[in-house]
């Protein structure tokens, strides 16, 4: 491996996210086969759907006998946050219509968090693309391996891998917590989500947590319109 690649934090972080994801992809492959999907169907889901939490929920519910009608709503609720992510990535998702449509496909937790953890727009775009590349490769190779291998690979929990994702997201959230506004918004989001856990279906608490940003967004809008009002007379002169 060239040394400049090893020394670049964005590349290094993207690769480590890929490695952790691959292990989860293997368990998705295993679960999907166990739920009755074929190897081809399992791989198409990872290639075309490419939304880890939704896919896992979808095959788990079907595997547990919940049927498609029972599996689709929770899977889509979990995928719903990607709409918020795509909205927040405006500016980062650049290029021609075709490139943006392609980038939209890889808008997920990891790519969004990596992009927003960078401070310049160029770094955000590079982090998004590199993470997407590592994640897409890892998720699909892992899925294929899991689908072919079937059961008996052990539980990812035994290796503590379920603790890796919150740790990774915390490491990516930390640089975004500049200033009291961001801290308050993060705390509000966490509290909203926790309050909804026992009563709302999976996926909804995470989407609803975005409401934690509303006071700050409204405040910013108000500040901007005050500035606009203050500047208006000058513009008239």
């Amino acid at each position, binding site marked *: 491996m060239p040394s400049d690649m090893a020394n670049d934090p964005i590349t290094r972080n993207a690769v*480590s996210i890929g490695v952790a994801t691959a292990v989860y992809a293997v368990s998705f492959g295993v679960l999907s086969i166990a739920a009755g999907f074929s190897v081809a169907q399992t791989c198409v889901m990872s290639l075309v759907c490419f939304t880890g939490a939704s896919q896992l929920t979808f095959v788990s519910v079907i595997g547990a006998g919940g049927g498609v009608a029972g599996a689709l709503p929770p899977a889509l609720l979990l995928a719903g946050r990607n709409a918020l992510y795509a*909205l927040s990535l405006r500016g980062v998702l650049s290029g021609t219509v075709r490139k943006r449509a392609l980038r939209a496909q890889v808008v997920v937790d990891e790519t969004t968090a990596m992009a927003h953890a960078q401070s310049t727009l160029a770094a955000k775009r590079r982090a998004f693309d590199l993470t997407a590349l590592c994640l897409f490769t890892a998720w699909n190779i892992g899925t294929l391996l899991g689908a072919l291998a079937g059961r008996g690979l052990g539980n990812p929990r035994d290796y503590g891998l379920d603790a890796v994702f919150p740790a990774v997201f915390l490491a990516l959230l930390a640089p975004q917590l500049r200033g009291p506004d961001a801290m308050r918004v993060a705390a509000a989001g*966490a509290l909203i989500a926790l309050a909804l856990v026992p009563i709302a279906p999976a996926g909804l608490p995470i989407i609803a947590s975005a409401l934690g940003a509303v006071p700050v967004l409204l405040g910013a809008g108000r500040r901007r319109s005050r500035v606009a009002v203050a500047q208006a007379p000058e513009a008239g002169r």
Partner: protein
Amino acid sequence: MSWWPVFVLCASAYALKLIGLVVGARLDSETSERWSLEIVVVPVLAALIVIQTFSTGQRFVLDARAPALLVAAVLAWRKAPFVVIALAAAATAALLRLVG
């Protein structure tokens, strides 16, 4: 298993991503005001962290993931490299489960 559930899942998952992209692009052209929409990701990531750590399904669960997150928080605060944070969290959870 028939193919239609696979297609429905794939199509709706992509549609959700596209909705955000299209709405974001429209906002950009319609309003000159630059709302800092990046802030929306902060509560969502915070929610993701606490949900993935303290719950399983609709139940609150306090297990090896909580001390692992604590270790990760200390390391993130000390500005440890990303890989160290991820490995330390996995090792903490795995060791605690091995012992407990």
